[in-house]
């Protein structure tokens, strides 16, 4: 029920938004996102955005993978 890829919000109108990924668009409810904005990346579950992806932490994840990877080599 969870979409594997995060959607990028391309329009927001109250609790209704439109998300886009790989050229496909989809209606998304953003009731649970504080101050949703166009350009936000969200994780969508059964039509509802359940969380906004945080960019700095996304970079931190990449870094964490690399660190373990480097230590293992």
């Amino acid at each position, binding site marked *: *029920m*969870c979409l*594997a890829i995060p959607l990028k919000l391309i329009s927001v109108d109250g609790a209704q938004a439109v998300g886009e990924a790989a050229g496909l668009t989809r*209606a998304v*409810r953003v*009731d*649970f*996102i*504080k101050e949703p904005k166009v350009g936000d990346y969200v*994780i969508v*579950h*059964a*039509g*509802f955005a*359940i*969380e906004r*992806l*945080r*960019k700095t*932490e*996304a970079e*931190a*994840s990449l870094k*964490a*993978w*690399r660190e*373990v*990877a*480097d*230590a*293992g*080599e």
Partner: protein
Amino acid sequence: MPESKALLQAIQAVDVPPVTLMEVCGTHTMAIAKAGLKPLLAPKVTLLSGPGCPVCVTPARDIDACLTLSARPDVILTSYGDMLRVPGSARGDSLLKRRALGADVRMVYSPMDAVEVARENPCKKIVFLGVGFETTAPGTAIAVQTAKESGVKNFYLLPMLKRLEPALRALAASADFAVDGLLCPGHVASILGENGFQYVARSLRLPAVIAGFETEDVLLAVYRLLLQIREGAPALENAYPRAVQREGNTLAMATVETVFTPCDSLWRGMGMIPQSGLALKEDYAAFDAIKALDVCFEEEKPSACRCGDVIRGALPPEKCPLFGVCTPEDPIGPCMVSGEGACAARYKYGGSV
């Protein structure tokens, strides 16, 4: 990704005896199967699937009740796709089959679509089959609130939502539970936050890492679990901070609390677990399909399908005597139906350990 290979090497290099880890999320089960991780991690790490696939934990008696409802001429059933193919206690009898025989059963992508169906069909009773965990409950709550606020009186929820914590506590207390660490479901944690999973380490004394869904996310979580096991110090770590905050999604949790209250709930293979379900609160009772449509649940019947053991991590899918006779095309149990089911994952991607 080159990181995967190196992460696998790092995992193999951790000095611990072979361990068994459990993933408690259907999306993890699928991600692991798709990336073929089980054979790559064996024999050091055995990954078991837990009770994390919403359709799989739904008992057969609930499916039977849905099938009975679908036969009512005044009812339109709306449901996520996975539910449609799950057989009830009679083999081959599913909502999809009922639809082929003329029942009005519609697949929806969001509970809001079900409210829309209700608006468009004012002379019918629209029942939404509300399965899912903490990730699904908030949206389901909004659908009920929307129906109430906009005066849609022919929308009903059949509440089959589940809460993970009581089930994990029950599982960890069972005699045959032999798991060394828990890969916590990233999206349930998006809602409940790190705070919502502290009990795994503190109270169940199990190493716990909240994991995302990329191959690297899963491998990093496995690696961190191994380090915890090596140190003998169970803790909760968040390896998915890009989508999980400490306090979770407070807006979503507040919405759930407004509409639902915890209730006892029956799980496939695990029996009745106190406070593990969600019932509609008094204010929203008019939208409860069980009350409004007199839904009646029979006793759970014994079945040859071993899904109940599979979702407890007590039986690997390929050890079920029916595995192979039971296939995604002709499923006997929900674990073979669902896109998130352990039997389906094993059947589709192989890679048994």
